[in-house]
């Protein structure tokens, strides 16, 4: 079974804090993604990585950055958390048959 593991299910952070969300996949997938899920908006792509140290902006990259130092690990960084970044964050990795496997999500609340 493919496993995509996100380090935290729930996080509460203060405005202005630097926040790290970690994601690890165990299937040697090359492509990894970070999405944010909000009611009525579906999932929106924040950043994408197709190889170690490679990254591309998605549709809503403002206020976020990413890091991919190892193939299995893709981190999302909120440089200075704001209340409008309160959301569910989903990490995914993609196999060669084009199926995306998602983690269980991290519900982040910024107060």
């Amino acid at each position, binding site marked *: 079974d493919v496993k*995509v593991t996100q380090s935290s299910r729930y996080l509460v952070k203060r405005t202005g804090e630097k926040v790290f969300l970690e994601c690890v996949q165990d299937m040697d997938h090359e*492509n990894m*993604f970070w*999405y944010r899920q909000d009611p*009525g*908006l*579906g*999932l*929106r*792509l924040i950043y*994408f990585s*197709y190889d170690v140290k490679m990254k591309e902006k*998605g549709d809503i990259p403002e206020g976020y950055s990413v890091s991919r130092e190892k193939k299995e690990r893709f981190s999302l960084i909120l440089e200075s958390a704001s209340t409008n970044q309160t959301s569910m964050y*989903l990490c*995914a990795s*993609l196999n060669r048959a*084009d*199926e*995306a*496997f*998602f*983690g*269980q*999500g991290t519900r982040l609340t910024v107060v």
Partner: protein
Amino acid sequence: QQQVKQSPQSLIVQKGGISIINCAYENTAFDYFPWYQQFPGKGPALLIAIRPDVSEKKEGRFTISFNKSAKQFSLHIMDSQPGDSATYFCAAALEANDYKLSFGAGTTVTVRA
């Protein structure tokens, strides 16, 4: 601007009934159209997918209908069961663009016993 528009936002169906969810897309270059199913507290999981060279794909009780000229596709859940109660997302992607998925807003399906 959302590239994939999904409707309805929610629907309630009786056990044994048919659930229908519709999606429309803008980018005619899209060549991959998956549907994802999400249960509360879980991440989305691939349910069924179609490519534009076919007009219909069926897997068990789930069927995708695809209308390329209208730029629309839909999910039909036949003989809906309470275990089908979930949120369903349609999506579209381009193989040449590394399958970056553009998602619809989601439809919450409730199946009443």
